[in-house]
């Protein structure tokens, strides 16, 4: 990867936002100065992210593997190294983070209260997310995974809505609670394998023989199961997978607009990314193990939880009267599709691994199902990042102007705000998965990949897809349709210029990804295919 001032681009991606955050904090208290500097900083980081993505696209190894920066010793005592790199999946996530952060910065120009700190926290958050996405070492991964929580906590806690105390505390405790198990699991794995290198662990850790006593007198199977649960719960909370989702509507609902955008757009992806990068490759044997009382394997259980997220998330969204909570529940619904795609990936990866132990390979159509579902899941992560950020931008904008989130108090706003209305419908349709826009491609791929594998579960999930339509239409109807609520007749509800500038790139990306998905899918696909080709001989 290309160097920047002698540092590798990945380290720059991590440290530049943090240093810029520091710079912003040290600036004299002029809100416009802070806004401009932060925007410029996030644009620079964004440009590097874009460059990283396209460099990967040009220089990717044929097997879709990593482009790495040389590893630097770090925490040698426990065997951790400062080891960074990207493959297609992480390149897509880096790109997403790089794009969304400047837009969030732009939108947070609406913040008048302590703008400097607010803006600096957004940059700090970017550091956390970038760190996770480029980490190739488990300790580095964990470090930044935790780091990303802190700025988000303060954003909600300090700049949030009326119930911000409750929401931020719930968010923090829930997330910390999840990562505690993950820390434990990380240590377990590091201790057992003697390394924190993710690729090495993925190759060696599943191969640890089950009969060999390793750790604290427990069998390997128990150790693996414990480690699995540590990761599984942590990432389930973050995605969020039903029933670990109740922190999300509160946090999203109360967070300031930029916070919601990044929370939904980027932070949820950390969880899904954790599944792709860690949980699936580390635990193929656990995924296909049966859960005794239920009589199904772990991957199927995961698919069932995903299905519940899709269906119940859609119902819950439909039942909301708070615009931001409605959009928040739509994330539960949409991330359910990511989860179901990951469940297919996990199951077939597990089966492929098991077959590889006896020297055979997965049937070609099963492998194709797995690849398509995984492609769909990763693309859905990217797409949900775009559409949920755009939805929160609009919902936050209208909240900022009307000071209410109760959709029953809106009504007929389209006539006051024609541009807002058109963009609201466009974004809603992207969120709904209208063919021609981005969400459809990924949902189709997930459904295509999952249907032959989890037939009944996919069939039931279609109820959720149906109700996606219902809550989206409910949102459009209550905000835009009907005669204007004359309470707003003297308000200016139209999108402001900086909001328009912020949402325009999102709309363009939604349309382009819907029409020509291959601009990003080739990159994702090469790495996803690479992950499975390990067992294809």
């Amino acid at each position, binding site marked *: 990867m290309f160097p920047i001032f002698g540092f590798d681009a990945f380290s720059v991606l991590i440290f530049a936002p943090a240093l810029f955050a520091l710079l912003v904090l040290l600036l004299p208290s002029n809100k416009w100065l802070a806004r401009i500097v932060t925007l410029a900083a996030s644009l620079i980081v964004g440009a590097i992210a874009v460059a990283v993505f396209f460099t990967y696209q040009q220089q990717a190894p044929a097997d879709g593997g990593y482009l790495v920066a040389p590893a630097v010793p770090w925490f040698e005592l426990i065997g951790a190294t400062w080891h960074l790199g990207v493959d297609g999946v992480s390149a897509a996530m880096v790109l997403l983070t790089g794009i969304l952060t400047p837009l969030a910065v732009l939108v947070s120009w609406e913040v008048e209260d302590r703008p400097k700190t607010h803006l600096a926290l957004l940059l700090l958050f970017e550091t956390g997310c970038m760190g996770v996405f480029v980490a190739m070492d488990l300790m580095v991964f964990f470090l930044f995974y935790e780091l990303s929580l802190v700025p988000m906590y303060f954003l909600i806690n300090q700049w949030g809505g009326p119930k911000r*105390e*409750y929401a931020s505390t719930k968010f923090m*405790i*829930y997330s*910390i*609670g*999840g990562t*505690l*198990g993950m820390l434990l699991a990380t240590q377990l794995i590091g201790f057992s394998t003697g390394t924190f290198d993710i690729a090495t662990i993925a190759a060696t850790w599943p191969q640890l023989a*089950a009969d060999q006593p390793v750790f604290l007198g427990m*069998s390997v*199977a*128990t150790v*693996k*199961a*414990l480690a699995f*649960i540590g990761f599984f719960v942590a990432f389930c909370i973050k995605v969020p997978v039903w*029933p670990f*989702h*109740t922190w999300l509507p509160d946090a999203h609902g109360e967070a300031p607009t930029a916070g919601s955008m990044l929370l939904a757009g980027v932070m949820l992806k950390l969880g899904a990314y954790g599944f792709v990068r860690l949980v699936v490759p580390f635990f193929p*044997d*656990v995924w296909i*193990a049966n*859960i*005794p009382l239920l009589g199904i394997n*772990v991957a199927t259980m995961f698919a069932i939880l995903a299905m519940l997220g899709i269906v119940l998330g859609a*119902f*819950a969204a439909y*039942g909301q009267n708070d615009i931001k909570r409605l959009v928040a529940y739509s994330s539960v619904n949409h991330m359910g599709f990511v989860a179901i795609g990951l469940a297919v990936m996990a199951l077939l990866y597990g089966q492929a691994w098991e077959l590889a132990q006896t020297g055979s390979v997965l049937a070609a159509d099963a492998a*194709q199902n797995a690849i*398509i579902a995984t*492609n769909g899941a990763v693309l859905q992560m990217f797409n949900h990042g775009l559409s949920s950020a755009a939805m929160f931008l609009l919902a936050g904008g209208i909240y900022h102007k009307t000071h209410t989130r109760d959709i029953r108090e809106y009504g007929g706003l389209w*006539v006051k705000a024609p541009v807002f209305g058109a963009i609201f419908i466009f974004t809603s*349709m992207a969120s709904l998965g209208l*063919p*021609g826009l981005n969400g*459809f*491609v990924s949902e189709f*791929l997930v*459904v295509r990949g999952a*249907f*032959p594998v989890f037939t009944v579960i*996919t*069939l039931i999930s*279609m109820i959720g*897809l*149906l109700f996606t*339509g219902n809550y989206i*239409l409910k949102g459009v*109807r209550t905000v835009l*349709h*009907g*005669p*204007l609520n*004359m309470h707003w*007749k003297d308000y200016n509800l139209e999108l402001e210029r900086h909001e328009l500038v912020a949402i325009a790139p999102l709309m363009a990306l939604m349309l382009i990804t819907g029409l*020509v998905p*291959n601009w990003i899918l*080739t990159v994702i696909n*090469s790495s996803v295919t690479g992950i499975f080709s390990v067992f294809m001989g």
Partner: protein
Amino acid sequence: MMVDFNSVDFLPWLVPVGPLLAFLIISLATNRAKPEPASSLVYGGFRPPYGDLGVPVATSWSRILSITVGISGVVMSLLVSWRLVFTATATKDFGEVVFGSSVDWLSLGSLPAFQMGVLVDPLNSAMLFMVPLAVLCIFIYSIGYMAHDPRQSRFFALISLFAGAMLTLVVADNLLLLFVGWEVMGLCSYLLIGFWYEKDTAYKAAIKAFTTTRVADVLMLLGIAYLYAETGTLSFREILYNPAVLEALAGKEALLFGGFGLSAAGLIGIFLVIGTIGKSAQFPLHLWLPDAMQGPTPVSAMIHAAAMVSAGIYAILRMYPVFAAGGDPHHGIFTAPLLLMAVVGAFTALFAATMAVAQNDVKAVLAYSTISQLGFMMAALGIGAYIAAAFHLITHAFFKALLFMASGSVIHAMEHGEHHAHEHHAPAHGIGGGADPHDAHSHDAHAEHGHDAHHDAHDSHAFDPQDMRNMGGLDKKIPVTYWTFLAGGLSLAGFPLITAGFWSKDEILADAWLGTTEGFGPHALVFVMLAVAAFMTAFYTMRQIGLTFKGEARTEPAQHAGLGGQYDIISQTMQLPLIILTPFALFAGFVGVPKDFPIFGSIFASEHNPFKYFVIESLHPVLHFEAPAFNWFPVLVSFAVALGGIYLGYRMYWVKPLKAGEEDPMIKILGGDLYTTLQRRYYMDELYVLLFVQPSQWISRQVNEFVDKGIIDSVLHGIARFFTWVGDLTKVLNAWLIDGVGDGIPRWIFQAGGWLRGAQTGKVQQYLLVVLIAAVVIGVIFALTAGAVTAQ
């Protein structure tokens, strides 16, 4: 790949480009409005309570530019499409040879990428002839019809997108692109049905349309995914032109339902048919279509004729070999999807016709007739009458577009009459010399309805310009509309020999009869139900024309009805499309005359039935249809039902036209209860609210209140409370212990504890503990159980 748009292989890409570009240009550039006081504005007959609030109204130059851009887009499509159609008809072995090209679209795994492309073959050539023509007529019509609307520019943007989506669907070479057009059209119909979104009936109808079709669409999506999983492709040519793929599909047991003897092709087929049931408004998903007339009338024409509902039937025509795979309806072997189509189609044809009989809204009659006619096509497809269905699709599109626009013209005339009637009674009204609409030469849109502003709101809402009971005698007021309406109506009624509707309907009945004579049950069912439905169609069409145009004017607005003067641009743009479509509604049927039909056969089909011979080539290698030998019986039945229905309607509504204040004779014949039941659509709306809407709202509430807040959050809060209690207990214990032991350091510890506990909300530690304990408990359980298994 060199792209050369002179080559017919690349030309299909350009078919939808014109309208899509028009949509972009209008939305981004030419749709400009300036605020005007709302007091003088009407949104589709509805006046929102805005007072003099400033609301955006499209400026005159924006209207003119948007109209120009929109129409240019369609004209471009028309030229490209017709060039393709004429090249196609002149191409030898067209069908085996097709025009098309594709690009890599989606890389999946290491296999070749998913191809996205376009295709022109005989089947969609027929569509490419019809769709742009009908759409162009609708666009021209919209110039006049929407001239007073404050949002005319937006309207042109949306119908351009609508047209672009339909054309995309038509030229698609794979099911996925077809689905893209399908859904974008769904969006456009949603936006256009709800175009006058201030009106609650409008946005409710829009939501209903979108939701109902989405029920079907998600299942169709599943069908597409399944088909893709089974065949590894969605390309029409690769699947449908390939007997090996079809055989494999028919031979493979279906997922999930394989136990019922269903093949993969069968299950895929059922999913896709359900998609069409939603889109083409077949029972039980037909409820959205009658409500869809809440949109402006050009939209109704678009939905009912040129685009939306036709797309449903077109999709089935397109994918027909999948439905028929493993069966042969011509020899009495029916697959599950075919049976489903035959039964649903035949039932819907008759069911909708019964409701049409009792409607009083001029557009509602047409809406039910659309449902019924689509049922004809569906049933025809179910019994293997592929060509007949395609033929009826085309002829129906022409006469139904004509009828809808003519009915819009009737409504417009009635609205004018209403204004005039008011003028008459209250000449003192009117602002700043509001012009008499009859003399309004100017196309300055907003001024024209201006004089209307001061009317009492009650007056304008009490009168329903769409209610046929308020009409009568319009044939003398709007003769052009009358004659064209009559032409379209006779075609719908299937008036023998000289109308297009006759030829296509007759062909369906002929095919059904052929199967009946061989003893196939579904054919017999279809034949009987369609014959009865055809009779009712003829009857209610004559009832409609009689009520609308015949006799004397029954109300004052009808007395004064008119489209404006001869030189009025509104009047002209609304009548021109009617005149253009009339010859098609009458004579388009001659392209599909059976060869051995007496006299007509020798004139129009000297070698063979031209339409059939052309379209059949689409499916050359996989399906073979023998031309049924000419049989007098179905032809006589066609004659009898059409003429019988027409005669009955003529006797009841033309000979003795309804007089003012008189009751519809239907009420006496049917009895009040049955009449009301029909008019209320068998109360199915109410039933659906009870069965689906209310339960889903209830479930939504429960998921929020009971599951999320009740169970999940209560458990969290409950554990939190438990630890608060433990914490308090410890505190009390400590206090007691500490008090017993002494002061000093212990007091400091206590204070520190209190400070910690009070940090933030005081709940931080509680939650932390909760999650920790929960994680540990779950962890132990999982570890024990999962560990036990992996150890085995």
